[in-house]
């Protein structure tokens, strides 16, 4: 899977991990390395592996060798068409490249803001790598425990009929329509697939999910003020999403609204004559990322 240390590539310049670049290469890892493309679950994974291959300490500054291989790997990865995955590798590659460039420049002449920033970027990369390595190592413990417990059998049998009747009478308050609304909530798409930008801007309230709530509430009540629609909601994001979904529903002519005076209460009325849940599924598509 991963190249073993003795198969270490001699120099970064000719170790692009594609065999066609090294036709006369007698190291069997040329193919081995290529086969392993894609098994790296992330840039840190690859970086750790490369560092391990070269037996470099991850606090070692001289990373130029690893940088070359990393970038060569990235070149291969682009064939995979997975933009998101590629961009994750790209961020780390850019940092590595920065560090390599900095290593080539004359040292210690200026301490300007730029080099300080670079230093911080490097430290951050190392720190993240260290952190990642710690979690990676401990994940082996998780795997061991999970496998061990997986084989164990605990007593978990059905409750005897005679004890079932001992349970208190069920209090049931839902009508068939309430129940359908419940189903609607349960089936409403929970997660819109997102590009992993969460670490930049923390997410995410689903407009579609909130629209399902708005639709359910409005259809049940016929008419509500927006204030009522968001009563009890503590999260600003949810309020915003409900408002956006109101706008979207208005666009679909599913509701009408009325505001008697500026900044006064907004009264929403359900007006859709033929509302299909398909509308809901498509709602807010503009906001999908």
């Amino acid at each position: 899977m991963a190249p073993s240390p003795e198969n270490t590539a001699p120099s970064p310049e000719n170790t692009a991990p594609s065999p066609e670049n090294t036709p006369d290469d007698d190291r069997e890892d040329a193919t081995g390395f290529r086969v392993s493309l894609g098994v790296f679950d992330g840039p840190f994974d690859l970086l750790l592996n490369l560092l391990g291959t070269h037996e470099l300490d991850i606090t070692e500054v001289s990373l130029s060798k690893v940088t070359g291989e990393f970038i060569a790997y990235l070149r291969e990865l682009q064939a995979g068409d997975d933009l998101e995955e590629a961009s994750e590798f790209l961020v780390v590659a850019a940092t590595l490249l920065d560090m390599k460039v900095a290593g080539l420049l004359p040292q210690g002449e200026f301490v300007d803001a730029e080099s300080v920033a670079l230093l911080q970027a490097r430290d951050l990369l190392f720190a993240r790598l260290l952190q990642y390595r710690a979690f990676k190592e401990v994940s082996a413990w998780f795997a061991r425990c999970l496998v061990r417990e997986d084989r164990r059998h605990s007593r978990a049998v059905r409750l005897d009929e005679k004890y079932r009747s001992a349970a208190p009478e069920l209090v049931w308050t839902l009508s068939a329509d309430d129940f359908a609304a419940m189903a609607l909530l349960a089936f409403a798409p929970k997660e819109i697939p997102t590009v992993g930008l969460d670490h930049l801007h923390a997410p995410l309230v689903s407009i579609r999910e909130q629209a399902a709530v708005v639709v359910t509430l409005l259809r049940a009540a016929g008419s509500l003020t927006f204030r009522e629609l968001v009563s009890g909601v503590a999260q600003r994001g949810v309020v915003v999403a409900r408002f956006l979904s109101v706008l979207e529903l208005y666009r679909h002519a599913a509701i009408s609204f009325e505001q008697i005076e500026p900044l006064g209460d907004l009264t929403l009325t359900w007006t859709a004559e033929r509302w299909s849940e398909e509308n809901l599924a498509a709602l807010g598509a503009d906001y999908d990322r």
Partner: protein
Amino acid sequence: MTDEPPMSVARKLEAILLIVDEPQSLVALATAVGEPVPAVRQAVEGLVADYDGLTGGPRRGFELREVGGGWRLYVREDYDDLVGEFVNTQAPSRLSQAALETLAVIAYKQPVSRGQVAAVRAVNVDSVVRTLLARGLVTEVGSDPETGAILYGTTDALLVNLGINSLDELPAISPLLDDVDAVGGDGLDERGVR
């Protein structure tokens, strides 16, 4: 008794009896522990006496009983009231939101496996399904021919609670369901959840 070999027939039977849901015939038990039926019969009789406190140990809170041609562990009858009270305090009289949503998913998608329900709700539903089973609102209706996963459906008790006569009277929400099937496909790893 303490001198017995570590993996005696009786001990192996104890292991099997601990996890079985249904009464097991002597033949089934013999197959399970890989011992001849007469030896199993003897060991079962030994265990009955053992749990009844006739072999020097205490009279256990459970007993080994033959019901409907099979053997199974039961709570000893003396403790029925205790257990009944425990079950009573454990079971809430109202269903939780999670239970209601799970019930709704089962109602609209039946027959459906726990794995499929979990995929729709994006949470593990094992304990909730157990609650619904215990409440008689859902029941096992078969198993998936390919995966062997148990499939669940709703019962007449749900219809009664909802005040409708048949599942056809459930309000339609079908357009969303098509979506769900698409999502359910990748929501989980292929094998689903046991």
